[in-house]
């Protein structure tokens, strides 16, 4: 039943657990190359700039801007039926223009969403024990 009543919960990937643990404790953690300092997104074992396999997890500001968005009106998943219309957005984090996260915007009407709008992270319960990084107007 759970699979049809809610969108699926993330399955933390090997090596990316810290991103999801951070969400659950209310911190937006991004993986950064320990050698050259380039942020990585999605999390991955190697830095594409310097090929280092060393990385560290950095708590970022959680501030960014709306890069793009869509308002979904046609439900393609059973759990979407009661939710349409809902927004899905891409948020570009202030720390690095290559950090563009897929998310939902909260605390704003769908018709008021604009590209370039400044936003900040907020952690929203998805299911017991799982929070997701969403964004609200800053």
């Amino acid at each position: 039943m759970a699979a049809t009543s809610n969108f699926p919960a993330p399955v933390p990937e090997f090596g990316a657990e810290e991103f999801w643990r951070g969400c659950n404790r209310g911190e937006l953690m991004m993986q950064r190359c320990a050698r050259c300092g380039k942020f990585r997104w999605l999390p991955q074992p190697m830095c594409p700039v310097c090929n280092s396999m060393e990385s560290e997890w950095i708590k970022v500001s959680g501030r960014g801007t709306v890069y793009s968005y869509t308002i979904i009106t046609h439900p393609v998943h059973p759990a979407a039926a009661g939710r349409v219309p809902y927004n899905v957005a891409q948020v570009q984090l202030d720390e690095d223009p290559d950090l563009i996260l897929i998310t939902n915007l909260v605390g704003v009407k769908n018709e008021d969403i604009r590209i370039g709008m400044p936003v900040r992270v907020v952690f929203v319960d998805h299911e017991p024990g799982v929070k997701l990084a969403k964004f609200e107007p800053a």
Partner: protein
Amino acid sequence: MHDAFPCAGAFWMETMKDKAAIVGVGHTEYSKDSGRSEMSLAVEAIRNAISDAGLKPSDIDGIAKFTMDNNDHVLLAANLGITALRFFAEAPWGGGGGPVGSVLLGAMAVATGMADCVVAFRAMNERSGRGTQRFGRAMVREGAAGPRAYMEPFGLFSPAQSVALSARRHMHLYGTRSEHFGAIAVACRAHAQTNPNAVMRGRPLTIQDHQQSRMIADPLRLHDCCLETDGGAAVIITSAERARDLKQKPVYIMAGAFGATDRQTQSVVKFLEQPRSETSVAAKDLFARAGIAHKDIDACFLYDHFTPLVLMAFEELGFCERGEGGPFVSDGKLLWPNGSLPLNTSGGNLSEGYIHGMQNIVEAVRQLRGQAINQVEDAEIALVTSGNAVPTTAMILHR
């Protein structure tokens, strides 16, 4: 910016240009519910293509398939009666690698002597779900793993929804409008009206109809999205030498290219401000290898999964600059018979049937043979692409 790799043009011209040809095409009925197995669709389309070429099944010794296609090489051979299979290959990435990619694998096999005659095909029950999950529906899973972990928990599932993000960004950056997307849908639908095998025959579409169609994922409307179809389509590739002795006028593979970047990690999400895209990577090599200019192309067959990605493909292929796609597609040039660059003259994924782009290759071949229903006068050179916004493939054909 990316440049074609140094010897791309010269080396290709020596080793591959016009060395392989498409000599047979075939397809099944395109429908919403075939009521048949995917194997049944595959072998009917392939048998029709073999027969069109004037060959026998025992002449076929290679099979290049979409990785996504559920039909197995050996089971196909068992149905067709191919007793010595010398080449089997797969092209990944669905509609990006698949349609043109499988043909190019066949072309390389026959040009190197690995095989004599290769079939490339796609067959699926994508609409009825008899074997293949509908692409326009989300797979219901307990959890979202891999790259999906960063999308599906937020309600982003289907390709249309991902494309909506890139379409909105394009509109924001360049002033592109929904009517620009609509021009592509209208052209493909117009071309389907004379095609007896087109799913959308008898249902013409105006730009007003497009504008009034329901929103799927804003800014994508219903008519910006391709069909979902049951059916199969196949082509036969052999060496240029052998092709000259067969039943049909050969259609030569002048150039081909594959392209991907490091940015396609999340479905069909596109990043417009990157200096290169999968399609631009393929395009540079493609035109260098063919040794022709864009103006030499008589008809184009662009993979039409979603209208905004067709618009962007024209930009990334070099027909116009980034951001100019809207006006480029809206001046009537894509419409047969009067347009200068007719697009998907049998209706495409949007209006003929969604056979994952393979039906566009069948139509390109008919055009260059002079056998198309909406025949482009004196068509000599055609451009065929696979899906934009995924790792992709493209080729230039000539008669």
